[in-house]
């Protein structure tokens, strides 16, 4: 009997042990929401909207896009942008993959939001429509980036299943663009204009942003009349689409104190000390506390700036290439640090930057001097200036917003479209290029007045160059070159630095870039993606499958 009693006790304890547990066997995450409790509040829905904004663009994207152009040189390492420009990219290139993955990640956020937003309680229908319109804008923006890089891409307008994602074929770029145009037209009336926006909503997508996006999308298709139509809404219909105008100071436009000014149509938000970018840690002069220089303006960019006479350096007899930085477009000094240029430190003091070899009085001043293309100082003889944030904190952590659309761009698009339609005249010039040059700080009337004798082709060159000077280092130059089909003109052959080589007798010769007209207007579809989804083949021409 005793034995039986033991066995009974053992069994009881054993069963208790097996079933009982200190921790529950069905734990609930303490750090995450689940499907069961996420879509239950407007606050949570806003989290996804905010995430979509986060995935729309970034400061790094802007800098990387710019490095694809003839404005910038990444001298330290073989970055993916540099590999593309040197014509040696193959479909396994990391950037082809990461850009694609990033865009579809953002699209997922948009589609999941659009799928679930209707079940969220506690939100007015109007509020939901407005947030949906913002998210639809972001979705269109992501598709726009995708087609500009890859041409035809996998396209869908609701969330894809795992299985679909591995079978979906590519949709033609034209079809995707027509969806973008249609979406933007649909959401313009659903979005508030800049005038209606409360201060707290500064930075939200407005109807003006959607109009500007339409203009840019049509610009990239060279649909000139559409460009004119949408630019006109922003230039002449301010009551409906928001009042915009040029900010009086060109350099001030990119300063933290002037965020959300009247020129900004949409920017990508950063917040001091909590959401920041720090490109300048590897781009500013070393004497200003940069770690190294990995990103520097090219001589070709510097040369593109006009003289104060409104002439190109080739055409202005007063230009002296041994004293190249005097009497130049003021936007040069606002965008680029050249030898003898000024730098305002975080503490507000201003100092001269010495770059020419053999200059600089102290060890500190000599930190910035050009050594060669494989040193810590600049590889080109120039440093970056535009978007330098004087309010940044340690390691150049900057909360400065990155402008995606601004009014000057609208004026430039308008001017370009008018000229392409052969409709440019003195009045239009004065309202566009003239106004921009005046704001830039040109005082010589010769530089501001309408070149009435110029042919359409000459005007085209002038407008294109103006676009480069005004929008340099803002991530747009590459797309302009691509849409102009001007790859061979701008992205082929040697790029250069300042005239510091051979004891100051020659320009620094850097990479010999290669542009393949039959290949390089598009990127390759990522190889890993083609390997998973055979329907992505054939690849874009010239890359191989």
């Amino acid at each position, binding site marked *: 009997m005793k034995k039986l009693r033991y066995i009974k*006790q053992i069994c009881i*304890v*054993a069963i*208790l*042990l*097996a079933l*009982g*547990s*200190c*921790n*529950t*066997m*069905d734990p609930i*995450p*303490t*750090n995450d929401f*689940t499907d069961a409790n*996420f879509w239950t509040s407007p606050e*949570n829905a806003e989290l*996804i909207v*905010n*995430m979509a904004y*986060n995935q729309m663009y970034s400061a790094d994207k802007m800098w990387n896009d710019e490095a694809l152009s003839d404005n910038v040189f990444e001298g330290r*390492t*073989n970055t993916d942008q540099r*590999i593309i420009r*040197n014509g*040696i990219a*193959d*479909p396994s290139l990391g950037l082809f*993959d990461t850009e694609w993955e990033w865009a*579809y990640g953002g*699209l*997922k*956020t948009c589609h999941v939001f659009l799928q679930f937003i209707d079940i969220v309680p506690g939100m007015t229908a109007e509020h939901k429509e407005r947030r949906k319109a913002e998210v639809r804008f972001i979705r269109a923006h992501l598709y726009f980036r995708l087609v500009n890089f890859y041409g035809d891409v996998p396209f869908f307008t609701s969330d*894809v299943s*795992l299985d679909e*994602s*591995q079978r979906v074929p590519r949709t033609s770029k034209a079809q995707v663009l027509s969806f973008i145009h249609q979406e933007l037209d649909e959401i313009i009336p659903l979005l508030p204009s800049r005038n209606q926006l409360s201060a707290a*909503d*500064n*930075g*939200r997508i407005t109807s003006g942003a959607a109009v500007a996006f339409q203009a840019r999308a049509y610009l990239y298709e060279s649909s000139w009349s559409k460009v004119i139509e949408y630019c006109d809404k922003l230039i002449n219909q301010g009551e409906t689409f928001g009042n915009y105008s040029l900010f009086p100071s060109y350099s001030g436009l990119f300063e933290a104190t002037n965020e959300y000014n009247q020129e900004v149509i949409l920017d990508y*938000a950063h*917040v001091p000390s*909590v*959401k920041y970018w720090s490109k300048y840690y590897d781009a500013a002069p*070393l004497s200003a506390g940069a*770690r*190294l220089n990995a990103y520097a303006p090219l001589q070709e960019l510097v040369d593109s700036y006009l003289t104060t006479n409104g002439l190109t350096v080739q055409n202005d007899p007063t230009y002296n290439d041994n004293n190249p930085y005097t009497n130049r477009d003021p936007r040069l000094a606002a965008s680029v640090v050249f030898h003898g240029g000024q730098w305002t430190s975080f503490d507000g003091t201003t100092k001269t930057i010495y770059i020419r070899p053999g200059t600089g009085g*102290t060890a*500190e001043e000599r*930190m910035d001097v050009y050594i060669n293309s*494989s040193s*810590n100082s600049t590889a080109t003889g120039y440093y970056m200036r535009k978007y330098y944030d004087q309010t940044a904190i340690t390691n150049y952590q900057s909360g400065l917003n990155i402008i995606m659309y601004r009014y000057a761009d609208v004026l430039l698009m308008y001017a370009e479209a008018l000229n392409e339609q052969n409709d440019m005249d003195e009045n239009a010039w004065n309202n566009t290029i003239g106004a921009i040059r005046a704001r830039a700080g040109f005082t010589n009337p010769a530089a501001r007045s309408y070149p009435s004798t110029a042919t359409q082709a000459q005007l085209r060159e002038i407008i294109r160059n103006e676009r480069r000077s005004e929008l340099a280092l803002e991530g747009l130059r590459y797309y302009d070159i691509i849409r102009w089909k001007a790859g061979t003109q701008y992205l082929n052959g040697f790029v250069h630095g300042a005239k510091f080589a051979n004891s100051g007798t020659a320009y620094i010769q850097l990479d*010999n870039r*290669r542009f393949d007209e039959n290949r390089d207007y598009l990127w390759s579809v990522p190889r*890993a993606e083609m390997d*998973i*989804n055979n329907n992505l083949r054939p690849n874009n021409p010239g890359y191989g499958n």
Partner: protein
Amino acid sequence: MKKTCIIIPLLIYLFGFGVNSYGTASKSIREKAVGLNQTTYTGVVKDKLGVAISGASVAVKGRAASTSTDNNGHFSISASAGEVIEISFLGYEQMMVTLTQQTNLNVVLQESANTELDEVIVIGYGTTTRRRVVGAVDHVNSDIIENRPVTNLTQALQGTMPSLNIQQRSMNPNDNTMNINIRGIGTMNNNSPLIVIDGLVSDGASLNRLNPNDIESASVLKDAGTAAIYGSRSANGVLLVTTKKGKKNQKPTLRLSTQTGIQTPKILFRPVEGYQNATLKNLSLTNVNAHPQFTPEQIRDLYDHRAEEEWSYDVILQDGLQQNYNVTLSGGSENTTYLFSGGFLDQESNFAGDFGIQRYNLRANVTSDINDRIKISSILNYARNNNKASTASNAIINSSRIPPYYYYRMQADNGKYLVNNALTDQNPLAELRDGGRIDSDNDYFNVNLGLDVKIIDGLKLRGVFGADMFSNHRYTRRLQIPLYSSPDATTPLVFVNTERNTEDYNEKTYLLNYQLLLDYDKTFDKHQITGLFGASNESYTRRANEIRLRFTDPILGVPVSETEILPSSYVSPQQTQQTGLSSLFARLGYSFDQKYFIEGSFRYDGSSKFLKQNRWGFFPSVSLGWRLSDELFMDSYREKIGDVKIRGTYGHLGNQDIENYQYLTVYTPYTNAYGFNNTSVAGAGFRYGNETISWETTKSFNIGADLTFFSQRLNASFDYFNNKTVDILTEPNLSAVFGTKLGSLNIGEMVNRGWEISVNYGFETGNANHRVGGNVGDTFNKVTKYTNDEDILTSDNITKLIRVGVPFMSYYGYKTEGYFQSMQEIEAAALPVGVAADDLKPGDVRYVDRNQDGVIDGRDRFVLGSGFPRFTFGFTYDVSYKGFDFGMLVQGSAKRDMMVRGELVEPFHSNYSFVMYQHQLDYWTPTNTNATWPRLTAAGATSTANNYGRDSDIYMFDGAYARLKNIQLGYTIPNTYSEKIGIANMRIFVNAQNLLTLSKNSWIDPESSEFNSNMSGSANSARNYPTLKYYGFGLDIQF
């Protein structure tokens, strides 16, 4: 559910002590009955050479009375004439003496013929002997672990057992990264073995908190037959650690031991001299038509100042002192045993500044037989780790990549820390000396309480409660230091640690463990039956919080008005993890005549990592063994040659080591995702879950043989295994178009095969006793199923591959085909996409055009090799001669590929390195066409992109090596001398570690690897902590 947490231990104790009172009463009655006419018998026990045997058991047959011999072999026991005493000691034949009136006995024990076979081996939930074991188990005792100048148990086990692969990836005391793999790579998931300490499943972190001096033995369970009892977590093998205990009837023994030594950092690579470096830098530039950097005058100047050169890497290193002290008091009475120990370890870091680790250990292991039926045991272990690390995370890179130019100094004579155009805004010396510190203090408390109740003869009930508690705290303080552009500069150019962070991290984890076991072991004539039935529950909880401040007060580090709380700070719910595992398990064994063995076991596990309907997994195994040599027809073989045992097992083992909540779709909030009007807002990301996930299963087959030769002097074991793992839980390789991640799915399959041999041989030459041991093992795995068949993972020019048909995480990339020797060769060759013939020059790398399509692209890549060590071996040799003893351990791997990138391979790597190393001097030139390396080219050039910008075998090296891990010489002072000063035993020794390493690449430590136990990790840039050589001495005293 929560309540059972308290109820169960209560039940165990109530139940236990209920029986207890009954048992105590009965004992006292019986003691009296035999207490008549007793005499005290004394004696001494010696071996045939006349050496006293201490710790031998002396027991009166048929009674509970027993004792053991002291350090001089003496014993004393009360008994009556006519009774029989049994004297036994491990490794010797049992001796029976019938007592007469002669009360002074001299006993000589004969060495047992079956020493090895009767060795007790710890297995899951029990013990067995070498004779009876039918699975693949390796076992080492404390003698292997003690006296090695290692700082933790993992290091101590390196090289001791076949297929127990331990790689010490970093020798940094503050970041002692080590991989442990048993039998190679069996899953794409975590490959770390299960750690069991004194019968309780433990967190892996506890292993290195133990004092190696406290370890009695370690067993490794390698096959299904032995490991399946641990069910769902046993697929990677099980490491069982048993701590020392006192012995019954042993008078108190006090043992003191100490080791002290110096660890000398050995940098395996050296830069060339400054003038040479400048010349080579110029050559790399002019080779790609760029302008030289140094003028001839500058080079001349460097040449003239050669004597003043110093290399920053040398400056930041110093010798480190390592000290270890242990004190152990052990003993036992008739019913109780005890062992108390304390240990202190202090290992200095080799970085300039005052860093290193300190560990304090305290242990109390007590057992007590309350009566004939009840035994209680208690293990209490406390460890304190103080880890003092520097804030300079890049000190090695930032110092080793700077050329030794005489004008590059980290610190001026006036004390100012300097920067220059190579260091820019970094200064490793400043960071190490004055940049603040990361101080961690970690408490580990381990409780292991057991209660054994003998129910009937052969049937025992055992209840165990165990708790592993970790309390970790880390305080980080980063001090701002000004750096100057020159010694006479008055204002600093930059600062390091400009943010002046102060951070506090607190973590608590506890693992609670309950077990109830029924154990049966009974022999009827020639039949032996063993049985085990058990239930257990484990609960794991982790909570952590961290506050991170920046811009704190420069002196106090406390918050001031400008201080910001960094958004990476977090509160407990953000870092809470809870898991539970409930199990039932059983083992049934039968053997006939110690000749035929059959054993079966199963475990039934339920895990909180899976949804209810997929939660439970069943893991059975069966084992068979046959002592062939005990058959009649083998009699003559047995007598002439030795024993033969053949054994085989098959079973299912599980693995569930994935993150929590993988079956749920989760939405994770992120702070500061975006901002409106300069006010930050949060966002949320999501990861999709899959409700169907469940256990991954390894189907494991093992066959082995144990053989002895030369009258058991030589014994050998051989094992072959074949494992197939199905339903491997891993994250699928998805199309990026899907847009987000999926949690782990049961999607992979792989096979893993291998074999191992271990041989031990003991022999004598004259007065010298020799013992030679060797082990070697090899494993080979292959992926057999994976989503979309492959995944190519590239990180910094090193590509790893998951592909059906090749080993998991193989190296993948281009094959080089030497260097171009002429322009004609370049023009005729297939070149990488976009590269024109005139971009390259003779001396640049040529690649194999695998698919012969005239262009080198991703399709031309090969499976290049595997980074997992194969043919790993260990070799030990010990010899004792009179009072002297000598021992050595060599360990290594005979086959391993190792990919290394960065400045140690590529000169002037990506402009991040400014220096060329001596081992890079054999580069291609028109007069040195048969060179090791391609011609020198500057970073950024197309040639450099061609030569070094690709994931090719230029980065692949032979990782095979053999290392004299440990060597020591000791001397035991003869008892006759030591006893005069009251010391029973005294040994002094000198030892050394890592004295000699044979490898094909002198410039890199062959143990360094990018792979962790999961075969993941970013590319190996060879920026390891230097290899440490240890020279020391020690003292071991027993009172």
